[in-house]
């Protein structure tokens, strides 16, 4: 209760603000339509209205307010329009349909998951290499850190075109971008995690005459788990962004990124917003699943 009530209040305020924002955002379009339909608009003529502020128009034409929430192609769709579109394109459509968001979501999700698996796998391997090899630590680690400050996403269009020109298409190019984005957070987090056992613990293993492999499996790997999960959660969000952005520059026909792009080409704002919310729900679900696994694992290991 301590959290739920404030969160719900904040959400209600956001929705209310959203509805309020729809009025000035959409009023001009609504008035133009109303005038064409023969309604009396103040002032008449789209030309005169162009220079007037949106708020002045709202005050002069208060009859048009409900219509701002029902427009066909609004500048800002009202929440219920987005919800309706989401419902229509997920539950009401067959999932094999090209208009189904479940279908598009799956296209993006499959690339995300493949890329995430590759990226984390390689990231963990590199982290192990860095922790156990002084040379790799000194020569590779600085680059891994620097690469986090670089907008790697700028590489996305090129990766796709280059892979296309050597005959690789479909899910792989997007997965490569996803993998690339999730790779570095995992490396950095995992190196920190594998180094987290303190000298006392490492000494203890030495007194047990543990081999390096035993030290890895029984001490370093278990103690890296909290760090691993933190970076996995960052990594999967980054992977999803990578898969979406990977769909932008090629004019992909399927996927959430393709829905965003098609919506922006044809001015289908409701479609953009519903694709955006679908992406948000997907991201939130993925992170939530990882959090649940994290809690389970850490509890089992006695760390949480």
């Amino acid at each position, binding site marked *: 209760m*301590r*959290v739920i*009530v*404030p*969160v719900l*209040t*904040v*959400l209600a305020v*956001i929705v209310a603000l959203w509805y309020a924002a729809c009025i000035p955002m959409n009023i001009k379009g609504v008035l133009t339509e109303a005038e064409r339909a023969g309604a009396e608009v103040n002032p008449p003529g789209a030309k005169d209205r162009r220079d007037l502020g949106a708020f002045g128009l709202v005050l002069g034409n208060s009859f048009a307010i409900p219509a701002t929430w029902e427009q066909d192609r609004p*500048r800002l769709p009202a929440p219920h329009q987005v919800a309706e579109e989401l419902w229509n394109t997920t539950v009401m459509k067959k999932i094999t349909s090209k208009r189904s968001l479940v279908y598009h979501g799956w296209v993006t999700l499959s690339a995300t998951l493949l890329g995430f698996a590759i990226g984390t796998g390689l990231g963990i391997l590199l982290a192990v*290499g860095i922790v*156990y*090899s*002084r*040379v*790799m*630590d*000194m*020569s*590779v*680690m*600085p*680059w891994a850190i*620097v690469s*986090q*400050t*670089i*907008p790697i*996403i*700028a*590489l996305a*269009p*090129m990766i796709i*075109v*280059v892979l296309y*020109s*050597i005959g690789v298409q479909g899910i792989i190019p997007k997965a490569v971008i996803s993998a690339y984005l999730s790779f570095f957070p995992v490396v950095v987090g995992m190196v920190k995690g594998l180094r987290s056992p303190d000298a006392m613990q490492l000494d203890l293993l030495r007194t047990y005459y543990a081999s390096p492999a035993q030290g890895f499996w029984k001490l370093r790997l278990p103690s890296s788990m909290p760090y691993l999960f933190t970076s996995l*959660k960052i990594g999967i*969000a980054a992977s999803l*962004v990578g898969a*979406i*952005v990977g769909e*932008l*520059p090629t004019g992909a026909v399927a996927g*959430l990124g393709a829905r*965003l*792009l098609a*919506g*922006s080409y044809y*001015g289908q*704002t409701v479609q*953009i*917003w519903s*694709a*955006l919310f679908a*992406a*948000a729900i997907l*991201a*939130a679900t993925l*992170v939530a699943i990882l959090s649940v696994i994290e809690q389970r694992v850490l509890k089992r290991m006695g760390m949480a």
Partner: protein
Amino acid sequence: MTLTRYNIATLIAGLLGLAVIFSAGENKLGLATILLCWAILWFANVKLAHSGWKQAKWLAPVLFGATLLLLWELTVAFFDVPLVILPAPSLIAARFVQSTDILWQDFVQTILKGGLSGYIIGCGAAFLTAILVDRFDFLRRGLLPVGNFMAALPIVGTAPILVMWYGFNWQSKAAVVVVMVFFPVLVNTVAGLRETSAMQRDLMSTYAANYWQSFFKLRLPAAMPFIFNGLKIATTLALVGAIVAEFFGSPTVGMGFRISTSVGQLALDMVWAEIVVAALAGSAFYGVVAMAEKAVTFWHPSQREK
């Protein structure tokens, strides 16, 4: 010297990997040269890393980077990799030098106008909101979970909407950046403002300090490491937002525009030159914020130990 065993293992793994990649090629001499170069330079790096030199700390990564560049150059040269797949580093450097004019214009448009203005507005707004949120416990309990949730979302997706609202020029890019940097900075700042201990706050109240006095003298300085953490995350996000937003429409200048059109023309040397600019801008931006952090939070343990 048990560590050398791992070095030999990584060396062999690297050689094997390269051998597998090139086993299909016909150019045996080129392959041999490349492998030899890799072996020599890696060996030099191993020696350097174990030499105990003070300079090895920055020399080793530089040598590693140079090794990669050299191998890249040699691979392109020996195997006649076409320009549309991978231009040689020398070619990219030449392109960079030739088109500094265009690159500078793109840099100004995307980084300075779009990225930096959005960064300043977004971080400023997040900071003010954080103070408000911190002041009212109800807001903190309500807004913080929402903010945490928003920080994990693919906010880049708002780019088409904001481009539609604010037009193709840099204002829409700045708007995307504002939305992208807002939540990470907000969440970190609010977390930082709660960092002080009850003992410290009690001390302030025994001094009869009012809210703003204890805010500026105790809680804001204590929050600085957290705030800078958020600001550092936001630097990368700002560049990402500014570049990706240009994929949805831009004037005929800008880094995202140049990248997407050059990719379309298969002028990959230009794309790489832009990527070099993005990398330099990203590291420089991060570096400036990190330096500011060092100057402001010199008292914090994480800065002192270095």
